[in-house]
């Protein structure tokens, strides 16, 4: 069974790589199989890891036991069932109820968390290096940085503030980009490009490693299993 599994996996791997040459029946076969299998997998997981432990078990427990708290779960189930209204064209509008709940829920969760984790945290991260600069220059720092390293550090900190401000300026929409604003936003674009370049370069290694692993599988595990 294990050897058979390797052969199946190798066959499907090659089917998908054949896409690199052009569209062909083998790729179409793998693509459709992949879609079918993944939807099936999704259904099984949402029943076994979602519906049963989260809704069914608590309800069952309150039907057989004393505590009735599990019956609360009937409310979300009711709203979930409203999705089936989609099947009847006259009642389609009913699915707006569960969708509205999910959207309101998502929006409510987002506001404080985004403010905290992204805005406050990122602003602090930009300002903080200057407290190190202050403590280094006034001699209150625990560890004194070597002067060369400190210079690099100052350049980095100043560049960071300039970069953040210029990039943000690029994202000003209700002002026309003329004069100083246009200059700032041009510098911002330069920062963005450097950022994109480095993100691109940094991702290469991870993706190539994934490819190497697949080739390793084909060459060593699969072909290796033949000989």
């Amino acid at each position, binding site marked *: 069974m294990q050897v058979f599994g390797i052969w199946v*996996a*190798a066959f*499907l791997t090659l089917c998908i790589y054949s896409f690199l040459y052009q569209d062909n029946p083998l790729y179409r076969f*793998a693509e*459709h*199989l*992949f879609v*079918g299998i993944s*939807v*099936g*997998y999704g259904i*099984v997981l949402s*029943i*076994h*890891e979602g519906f049963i432990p989260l809704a069914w078990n608590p309800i069952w427990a309150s039907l057989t036991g004393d505590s009735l708290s599990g019956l609360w779960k009937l409310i*979300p*189930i009711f709203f*979930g069932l409203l999705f*089936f209204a*989609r099947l009847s064209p006259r009642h389609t*509008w009913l699915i*707006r109820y*569960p*969708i*509205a*709940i999910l959207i*309101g*829920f*998502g*929006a*409510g969760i*987002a*506001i*404080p*968390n985004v403010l905290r984790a*992204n805005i406050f945290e*990122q602003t602090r991260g*930009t300002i903080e290096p200057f407290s190190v600069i202050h403590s280094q220059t006034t001699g209150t720092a625990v560890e004194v940085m070597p002067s060369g390293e400190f210079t690099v550090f100052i350049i980095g900190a100043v560049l960071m*503030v*300039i*970069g*953040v401000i210029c990039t*943000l300026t*690029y*994202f000003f929409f209700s002002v026309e980009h003329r004069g100083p604003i246009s200059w700032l936003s041009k510098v911002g*674009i*330069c920062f*963005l*490009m*450097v*950022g*994109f370049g*480095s993100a*691109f*370069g*940094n991702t*290469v*290694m991870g993706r190539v490693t*994934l*490819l190497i692993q697949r080739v390793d599988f084909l060459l060593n595990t699969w072909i290796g299993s033949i000989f």
Partner: protein
Amino acid sequence: MKRLIPLVLCFIFGIVMIATQFSPHPISKRVYEEVVNGALIISPFALVLATVTLIQTHATRILRRSDHWQYSFVVFAGLITMVVIGVPFGPKNTVFEWLYNNVQVPMDATMFSLLAFFIASAAYRAFRARTTEATLLLVTALIVMLGNVPVGNLVWNKLMSWTPWVDQASAAREWILYNPNLSARRGIILGVSLGVISQSVRIILGIERSYLGGGD
């Protein structure tokens, strides 16, 4: 009925989720947990619905004999196999696990690994030093790539052996990633976060209604 109730529901759930996050009281904690759980229960139902749609789409394709209709049978085969084995026996069943490990995971990994090819071809085609911005993009990408693999330092140490600095290829990469890269990302994140907040405020207050679709 068709528009007002959804807007009210959206408002209530939004406000409740915000309020509970500012309150340490046990009752508010309990409400928070129940709502999070409730949302987790509602979402899977949407998938059941989607499956119905998927079956409809492919059934129509087969009935109408549209292009490549034969492949729709493959979709059904995969779907039915997983559901017939998985739903009654659960995801820890050996056959289900076998299918997952030898069919789904390899295909997932292979699709992911296609990126290596596409990254190379995108780099070859798009990295042309046409403008200042494009040049910046290209040069940083090259520096970071060389700093990532040992060859980068090897080449540096060979070429720059007359300078006192060693292993500067990886140091340059580190500096770029930590400095200009981070500030650009911060700029994007700050802007996007403001967008997220304003969108959420509009949704909760019922100003943004596009999710209701058109009609009445």
